[in-house]
């Protein structure tokens, strides 16, 4: 974090774009979306509706490092391919 500050300098409030600017926001989750690929019909609605841009268009995979677990993808999926499952471990714990 400190290296970024040196680079920008203390002149003013200029920030640089980077993924994960709020850290691993996946740690916010209480529930995580789980996709059943057999039910998925590639309609792309989950990709469109994710407010955090965590789903890739190509593979429709969810980036759990940043997914906040809002549940919109599960509600909007027309085939019911996504279910919200309660988290057992946090992203941090998973990494260990």
């Amino acid at each position: 974090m400190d290296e970024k500050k040196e680079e920008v300098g203390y002149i003013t409030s200029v920030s640089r774009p980077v993924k994960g600017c709020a850290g691993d926001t996946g740690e916010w989750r209480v529930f995580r979306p789980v996709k059943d690929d057999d039910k998925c019909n590639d309609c792309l609605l989950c990709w469109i509706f994710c407010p955090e841009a965590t789903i890739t268009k190509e593979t429709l995979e969810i980036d759990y490092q940043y997914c906040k677990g809002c549940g919109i993808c599960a509600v909007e999926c027309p085939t019911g391919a996504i279910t919200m499952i309660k988290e057992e471990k946090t992203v941090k714990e998973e990494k260990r």
Partner: protein
Amino acid sequence: MRVLETGNHLIALAAEASAVEVVPAYPITPQTQIIEMIADLISEGKMDAEYIPVESEHSACAALVSASLTGARAFSATSSHGLAYMHEMLHYAAGIRVPVVMANVNRALGPGWNIWCDHQDSISQRDTGWLQVYVASHQEAVDTVVQAFRITEDSRVLLPLMLNLDAFVISHTYMDADVPSRAEVASYLPPYRPLWRLDTRKPVTHGSVVYPADFSETRRSMQIGQENAREVARLAAGEFRDVFGRWHGDLVEPYLLDDARFVIIAMGSLAAEGKVAVDAMRREGLEVGLLRVRFFRPFPNDEIRQLCAGREGLLVIDRDYSYGNQGALFTEIKGALYGRADVPSHNLIVGLGGRDVTYAQIADMVKKAWKEDMPEVIWGDTQVSSGHEVTREILCEFSELFDGQPVGLVEGLDTDG
């Protein structure tokens, strides 16, 4: 090009010569002729700038800043209530570090509505982070516009500058002045090379949320910009003299100070008037001098200390008041001298709301402050009572509509005349 023009028109001509590219404009007396002339120059094809006729001064400052952040050299002008209206945005401009220049035609703030000259508007903005200059002549107005961009755009400064000129005394009177051509200015002022800007090739975010952990550093850096501005302002004035052969002082302008026993300190046109008072007193054999404060921000502490030490007395003229304390310039002068030069000082408050001040009045006040026992703050031309003090009649004027008792808390107050 030698012209006979008003201070306002000269500011406009100087902006054109300085290759200003964007001008957000909102009219307010007594600034209007600046933006009217700029509109004329553009419409006649003599000035190549984008004119933004904004719908308020707050918006004028917003557009000034965003145009500058996009990478264009931006200029505007205002006065009095207009300056006050954009107060929030003045802080913003300094905080986001854009080198914009704005002319402020010093005018009183009301109510009562008053369009004439005093410095209340600009001294009320002294904490915003803007550099502040006060010009005392038409020629200086022209030359300072050019110097201003040279100072603000220096990467050691990168702070906005407010160029103050007195309402009507300078803004509306005609004097002859030399306005350099664009080519001449270009030999002194290079094109604007912004430090960073809104550019799709290099996306960055400006004006982010900054937490306490980092905020102080951004502020300290603003102060460093102001401190650097002292040296940059001296360089800019010196180089201007080399190129154009004209000098108006740098942070200050001393007048007959070498052997002066008593010194007048003033800003703006009252300093010019003060020089005439000095000349008159010198003819009477009084060793008086004048120190004109040209840059109010950054405040020229070193120069003040050097030039005031050892004098018999100071008379600081304020065409403003910091209510609840004393004149703004006086307070800052005392701050500069405290603990370093103990010189008896008085504050002369004159000219508020455009009341005319003559050199004879100034000379009279100097003599009184020097030789007689005067209060620290001298309200030079203002009576304590002008027949408008609160009387029992006034306290009951409207209350007779309901219970007839005097309004307010008047116990112990002698309201019978």
